[in-house]
């Protein structure tokens, strides 16, 4: 193997390249970067980058000289436009065609647009550093900020904007915030938490349109009523960046469908990060792994590493290692840190093991089909991290709860 192409130069892509070097690969690495910035970290974009005016360098994933030492050829501001696995070629938006021996696809996700959504300077879909720059200057005291979608990122922006003195309204179509991540019961608790901090959280409302004036959005229409806006942030979920792979023969269905090795079905072609859908043996019944796509930081890192190691193995005729992982994410809402280990579902049983929302600290166990499926922590990071081993052993709900109690004792 003399040339590895990595498409997508964010977290998963960079970790893959680094892993190739750690694994002793000394050949050429080309990273295709649709953005113009060197690889940077997204989580601060909804948090300290907005509130504390951090500069771009501060969120770089690696220091300049460290990045240089990897000896990677970056194609910045260039997109991959198609993949031809028979000739091992990737076509680029600048007209070039590159031939690879090994390929890692890490094109991640982008924010989904709402039907009829206009383009305006004061309407932001927060995913990139460019988006964060667009948003930051507009979060001034008393600005009316309307956040559409009460997912984690939407609520992080709401907290940050509120802390900056903005007047914040959150519009959510479902009956509670965070339902997809934390289920209805805890989602409602977080709605109350945000209301207590002065955020106007409106659930079960449908966005019907936008009012525009002179190229700006001046209001969002919900249930026939205008909600005035100086800034609108759309955070209604993300969609995987796979359009460029249409016609490539790869299986695309809410992400690139991979096998347990993160292989896409073609030798020496792997995928990693938010764009991947794969059978995760750490989740679901034993012998029936759940086909899932995970949109969280640690997963992108772990998959970047796993995909690169499996590429090194397959290209040298060695055995690959299946990738499995207990999903994990964190989110910061005002002064609270939410962490979740495992997987939640809308109809999970939830049992609070210790603490409460009122105390601002808690650990809750999530049960599904009689098994422990997730552990939520509010500002109690250690027990959540330690619950990973418990979740990996897939105990019954009752047994899982006793193990969690023992952990906390």
């Amino acid at each position, binding site marked *: 193997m003399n040339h590895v192409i990595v498409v997508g130069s964010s977290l998963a892509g960079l970790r893959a390249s680094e892993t190739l070097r*750690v694994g002793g690969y000394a050949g050429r690495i080309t990273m295709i970067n649709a953005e113009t910035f060197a690889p940077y970290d997204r989580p601060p974009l909804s948090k300290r980058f907005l509130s504390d005016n951090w500069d771009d360098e501060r969120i770089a994933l690696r220091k300049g000289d460290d990045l240089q030492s990897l000896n990677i050829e970056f194609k910045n501001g260039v997109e991959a436009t198609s993949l031809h696995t028979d000739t091992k070629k990737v076509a680029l938006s600048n007209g070039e065609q590159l031939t690879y021996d090994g390929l890692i696809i890490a094109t991640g996700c982008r924010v989904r647009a709402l039907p009829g959504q206009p383009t305006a300077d004061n309407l932001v879909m927060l995913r990139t550093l460019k988006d964060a720059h667009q948003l930051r200057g507009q979060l001034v005291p008393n600005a009316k900020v309307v956040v559409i979608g009460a997912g984690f990122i939407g609520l992080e922006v709401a907290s940050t904007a509120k802390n900056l003195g903005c007047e914040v309204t959150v519009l959510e179509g479902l009956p509670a915030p965070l339902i997809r991540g934390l289920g209805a019961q805890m989602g409602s608790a977080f709605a109350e938490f945000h209301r207590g901090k002065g955020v106007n959280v409106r659930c079960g409302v449908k966005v019907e349109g936008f009012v525009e004036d002179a190229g700006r959005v001046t209001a969002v229409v919900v249930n026939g009523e205008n909600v005035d806006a100086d800034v609108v942030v759309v955070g209604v979920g993300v969609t995987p960046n796979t359009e460029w792979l249409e016609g490539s023969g790869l299986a695309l269905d809410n992400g690139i469908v991979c096998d347990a090795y993160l292989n896409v079905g073609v030798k020496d072609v792997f995928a990693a990060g938010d764009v991947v859908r794969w059978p995760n043996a750490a989740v679901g019944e034993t012998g029936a792994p759940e086909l899932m796509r995970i949109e969280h930081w640690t997963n992108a890192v772990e998959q970047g590493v796993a995909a690169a190691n499996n590429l090194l193995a397959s290209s040298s005729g060695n055995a690959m290692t299946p990738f499995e992982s207990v999903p994990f994410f964190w989110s910061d809402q005002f002064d609270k840190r939410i962490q979740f280990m495992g997987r939640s579902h809308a109809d999970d049983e939830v049992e609070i093991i210790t603490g409460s929302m009122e105390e601002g600290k808690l650990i809750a166990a999530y049960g599904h089909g009689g098994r422990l499926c997730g552990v939520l922590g509010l500002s109690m*990071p*250690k027990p959540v991290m330690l619950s990973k081993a418990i979740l990996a052993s897939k105990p019954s709900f009752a047994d899982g709860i006793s193990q969690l109690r023992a952990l906390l004792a």
Partner: protein
Amino acid sequence: MKIVVDFDLCASTGGCARICPEVFEVRTDGYLYVLEENPGEELRDKVIEAAENCPTGAITIED
């Protein structure tokens, strides 16, 4: 002040390095390095902030 990182918990997010680069650094091998295990008192506030912001609760400050 002595800094102890529990590497079983640390996920190498680099969150601490962003707040206190004098003490923490994530390198291209994907690991967190503690550059200074016994930093001076002038860094106490920053180190406390880094510990509080660590998403895995991996950082402890002893005395």
